[in-house]
């Protein structure tokens, strides 16, 4: 039984300072006329999201690696739990927003993207980038709160990747995306059918994972020390997954679907646009729902304050748990983070989102694009992991 003793006063105090500062930041956003309420709420949801990601180690690459290396399926099952609860919540909201899923009608802003080979390619490349850099974009964001300096380079790489994505967008759009169908399951199955089919699919996946799960408790670094206090022990992934599904549904109700790349993309687009690196018109891009990127006109955007608060939330959680350990990365690590980041940035741009925006928010919304992303990101991740092993980068 882990000790319930409070963490040292210094950790408690610094963590509290970060938490209070973030809440005050959210409060100050609330006074902005028109949209201030949504900004403030985005900041609070980001704060919660950051805490949940950090505490439950909700990292798509890490949990996949646990399974591939140690046959520990608990992490992946946590993601399945998040998807299942999120699907239920989203469909309850859909039924309120758009009582009849008539053809031609879409729920507002739900991340339902075009189904094309570009989506598959983007997801695949994103998966390789995850393996190369050690995690996906959302996990790099929460790692930033743990003091991981390499993650900074991964995010920098992602910005570059976004610029490459924008530069290649017009060609890809005309070659593959423009005529691609946008498949929303409720259009074909109704809300009940969409829930049923997707929950059955998740059930099948969970069963498969469980069959391959090696039940031996593998003590990983975080859980090893038996003396760890309640405050230091990581939460099981499924706990994080269920809480994240709750945040996802609340966010969709009040602000929009969860995503972590819209702001990165907007910064990249605004910068590259100012440098005149991009075509003056990105065909069709602004007509898709997904992690929408826009030329920045105001300092604060909902997604911008969301990811800023995410990092702060993770920082607060990491400080409290003693997980805040800044470490100088080696040069090869920096190189891998940067290169992986570029691949992820390009992939997230052409796939209109990442593991959060397209996979999580897409599958919850009954988007076929979310499932396609999941399959190909898994393939890319597996291939990247194999390559890493062969090159001895583990």
């Amino acid at each position: 039984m882990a000790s319930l003793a409070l963490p040292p006063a210094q950790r408690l105090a610094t963590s509290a300072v970060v938490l209070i500062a973030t809440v005050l930041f959210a409060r100050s956003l609330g006074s902005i006329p028109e949209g201030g309420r949504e900004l403030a709420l985005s900041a609070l949801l980001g704060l919660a999201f950051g805490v949940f990601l950090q505490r439950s180690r909700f990292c798509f690459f890490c949990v996949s690696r646990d399974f591939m290396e140690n046959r520990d399926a608990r992490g992946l099952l946590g993601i399945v739990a998040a998807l299942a609860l999120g699907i239920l919540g989203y469909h309850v909201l859909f039924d309120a927003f758009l009582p009849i899923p008539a053809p031609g009608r879409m729920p507002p802003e739900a991340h339902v993207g075009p189904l094309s080979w570009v989506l598959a390619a983007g997801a695949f490349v994103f998966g390789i980038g995850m393996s190369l850099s050690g995690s996906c974009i959302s996990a790099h964001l929460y790692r930033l709160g743990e003091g991981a300096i390499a993650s900074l380079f991964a995010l920098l790489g992602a910005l570059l990747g976004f610029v490459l994505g924008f530069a290649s967008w017009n060609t890809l759009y005309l070659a593959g995306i423009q005529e691609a169908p946008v498949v929303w399951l409720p259009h074909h199955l109704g809300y009940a059918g969409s829930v049923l089919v997707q929950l059955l699919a998740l059930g099948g996946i969970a069963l498969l994972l469980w069959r391959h799960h090696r039940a031996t408790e593998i003590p990983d670094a975080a859980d090893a020390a038996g003396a760890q206090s309640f405050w230091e022990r990581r939460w099981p992934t499924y706990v994080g997954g269920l809480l994240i599904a709750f945040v996802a549904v609340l966010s969709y109700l009040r602000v929009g679907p969860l995503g972590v790349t819209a702001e990165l993309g907007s910064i990249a687009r605004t910068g590259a646009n100012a440098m005149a690196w991009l075509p003056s018109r990105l065909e069709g891009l602004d007509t898709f729902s997904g992690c929408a990127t826009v030329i920045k006109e105001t300092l604060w955007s909902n997604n911008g304050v969301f990811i800023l608060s995410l990092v702060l939330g993770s920082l607060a959680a990491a400080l409290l748990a003693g997980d805040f350990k800044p470490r100088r990365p080696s040069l090869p690590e920096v190189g891998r983070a940067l290169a992986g980041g570029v691949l992820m940035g390009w992939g997230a741009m052409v796939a209109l989102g990442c593991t959060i925006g397209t996979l999580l928010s897409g599958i919850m919304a009954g988007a076929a694009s979310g499932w396609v992303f999941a399959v190909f990101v898994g393939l890319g991740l597996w291939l990247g992991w194999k390559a890493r092993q062969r090159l001895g980068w583990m």
Partner: protein
Amino acid sequence: MKHIKKLLLIGNFILGLGLLPGLAQAAPSDFLVSTDWLEKNIKDTKLRLIEVSVNPGLFERGHIPGAVNFKWHTDLVDPVRRDIVSKDNFESLLRKAGVSEGNTIVLYGDTNNWFAAWGAWVFDIYGVQNVKLLDGGRKKWEAEGRPLTARAAVPAAGNIKVSAANTALRARLGDVVAAAEKKTDVALVDIRSADEYNGKVFAPAGVQELSIRAGHIPGAVNVVWSQAVAADGTFKSVEELKKLYAAAGIDGSKPIITYCRIGERSSHTWFALTKLLGYEVRNYDGSWTEYGNTVGVPINNPAGTVWGAT
């Protein structure tokens, strides 16, 4: 109190004598409802509330209880050719929204009712009766802390029949060119920003669809739509509106055509001039994106901006 009422009555009588030809004119309250009135009458079974907002996700995350959602880009226009919605599609849209003969329809929306006013114009073209705007729109309703709901209603189908399109409310390119060439005696009102009117810019910031010529239709006066609106988003009083437009030479003595970039903000001014002031007004929905791209029509471009020039 009694005395004041009496005085008002006498005043009205005198005013009425002065405006004898306008005796049949409707009062503004026939076309506007206040947020207060709406909240009190929201349960009225004869009331049909319709939101026409331009920003996606607004209606779904919170609308005035009982409202149905019309989408400007798909419901109120023809999605293939550039035109307003066809009569059949409009009738079925209204029936699906539960509109029947004898209903009172209240329209409201975001961005100062721009698109709701476009809606009112389309309703008028198809001869739908008892159509009013919520004065101040969503903005005022929200600012006053009145309730919103995220649950969309599914009304039972209505039985309304709409008339054939009344072309007298709609100006076409030919009408506007004739006015520009002084072949007809028509007053043109350009309600865009002064920079668009003067040809300094082709379109407002952030707008992609533009004309390849800048400026305005010769003879048009510039009265920016927002001048018709008070700080809380409601229309200014009839007296203020009269003064505002008279200062620009628009006094209702001759027929008026309003236009903007795509015809939706100008519906707002169309509403003020035709419904609140009772003038004879047509809205030119082709607006500057049609006129400024048309070959061989006269243009006044004070700023002299040249498209594509480096």
